[in-house]
């Protein structure tokens, strides 16, 4: 029954490009991008309560590597879309090992700086060694192709998440989120458990970055390594609620629509709105829509 419903949902999502015009398809593609990003982000940050602000860094690696690979090294899109997530996973391993052993605050601050650091490094290498030429991503992909690829990634993220929820690793992460000292004392290698999950989020963020690169057609480090993206992912996941696998999904859809309206009406104050949404969500609905929904359901039963 549940599988049937999920299959139906997947099918419904798959026919979106066939029934919508360019404008709505573009919004749906953006939403699908954020569904994959927020859901995979929550796999790590949900149970551990560590707010990772590194999505932009890994996403940027995906986009930038597709750009430089296709423009400078004559690689195919597919090769780069395969290599980029592995590079991001390796970077996540290094960052995780360096910061996740320390206290949570270190981790959050470091991830915030990471996108900026990688962006500067990439710009520097680009300007000094590769020449500051533009990076073109020319493919035959239509928006529908990109949408379907993102849908496939999102489906894999959900599969991975539902496996994780039933696995010992997922259980270990929940224990870590409850009490890290107890986690260590029942035999959990807390550092590695966190690093493995952080690598997973890095992998998916870079994969998504690579897939949407053809949307930009022209890649610039300043655009793909965007701190705004990191915050958007966090906000949408928190809005939906991170204690359920499908929570972020519930946050992404309304927020993407609202954000579309905001960027059209107030193109110069998006940062202000981003900050405002963040504060409102954290203060008003700390457990997101899913938390709200479950509380209401609980009250109705009583």
């Amino acid at each position, binding site marked *: 029954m549940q599988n049937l419903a999920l299959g139906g949902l997947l099918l419904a999502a798959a026919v979106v490009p066939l029934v919508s015009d360019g404008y709505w398809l573009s919004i749906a593609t953006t939403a699908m991008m954020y569904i994959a990003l927020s859901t995979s982000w929550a796999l790590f940050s949900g149970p551990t309560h560590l707010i990772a602000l590194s999505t932009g860094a890994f996403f940027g690696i995906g986009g930038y590597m597709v750009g430089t690979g296709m423009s400078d090294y004559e690689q195919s899109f597919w090769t780069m879309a395969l290599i980029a997530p592995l590079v991001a996973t390796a970077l996540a391993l290094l960052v995780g090992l360096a910061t996740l052993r320390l206290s949570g605050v270190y981790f959050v601050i470091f991830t915030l700086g990471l996108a900026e650091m990688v962006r500067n490094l990439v710009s520097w290498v680009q300007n000094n060694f590769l020449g500051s030429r533009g990076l073109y991503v020319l493919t035959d992909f239509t928006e529908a192709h990109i949408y379907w690829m993102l849908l496939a990634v999102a489906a894999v993220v959900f599969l991975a998440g539902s496996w994780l929820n039933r696995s*010992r690793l997922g*259980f*270990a992460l*929940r*224990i870590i*989120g*409850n*009490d890290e*000292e*107890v*986690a*260590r*004392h*029942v*035999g*959990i*290698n*807390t550092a590695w458990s966190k690093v493995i999950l952080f690598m997973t989020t890095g992998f998916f963020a870079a994969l998504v970055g690579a897939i949407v690169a053809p949307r930009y057609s022209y890649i610039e480090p300043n655009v793909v390594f965007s701190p705004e993206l990191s915050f958007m992912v966090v906000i949408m996941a928190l809005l939906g609620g991170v204690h359920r696998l499908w929570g972020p999904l519930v946050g992404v859809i309304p927020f993407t629509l609202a954000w579309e309206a905001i960027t059209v009406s107030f193109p110069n104050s998006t940062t202000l709105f981003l900050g405002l949404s963040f504060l409102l969500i954290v203060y008003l609905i700390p457990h997101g829509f899913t938390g709200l929904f479950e509380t209401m359901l609980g009250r109705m039963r009583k």
Partner: protein
Amino acid sequence: MTPGDTILRVQNLTKRFGGLVAVNDLSFDVREHEVMGIIGPNGSGKSTTMNLISGALKASSGAIVLKGADLTPLPPHKIARLGVARTFQLVRILPKLTVLENVIAGAAFSHKPRWGAEAERFASDLLDRLELGDKKDLGVDALTYIDQKRLELARALASEPEVLLLDEWLAGLNPSELQIGIALIADLRSEGRTIILVEHVMDAIRSLCDRCVVMNSGTKIAEGTPAEVLSDAEVIRAYLGEG
């Protein structure tokens, strides 16, 4: 059960916090199936000793050896996987997990890992034994203080430890709960478990411990059966003088 061979060796263990020497050149052995008490006035270094054994703290010098394996340099999760389980002086249960999940947490990553249906059955049996069987599926906020203590003990037992560390597990119980608590540990003792017990309750020490180490200001001042150490002049002075 009669004590067997030495299972845990504490050798010249020292822990400094800055200028303070919390544990000073402490040595003792624990034998299999033995209940070893660590007693002493507040601040004498008992919890620090437990924390050093479980790996929560790193020793400044000295060694802790479990069945020939040197625990001293190991992180807590590796020590746990060698068969050391503990409860904490201030009870620590996992607040967002159910009662049953709290116990499975103790079983899933131990030296005898259990998972899935087997872990659930094993954890259920343990909860039945500790008279928490009917609260399995509840959240832990529904538990009374003694039930929280029982749950923490169940989590530790779920790993089937070689050595069980109980840091003032009886503290804070009212007189009738105390009798239940003492009976419970007496049960564990008669099963032949190896236990290191930090305790203030004299009745418990007399009835449960095979031997005791008495600490004062980080130093061992006596070791022997409860009857021996509790009649020792220096021990009486330590308790009456500063305790």
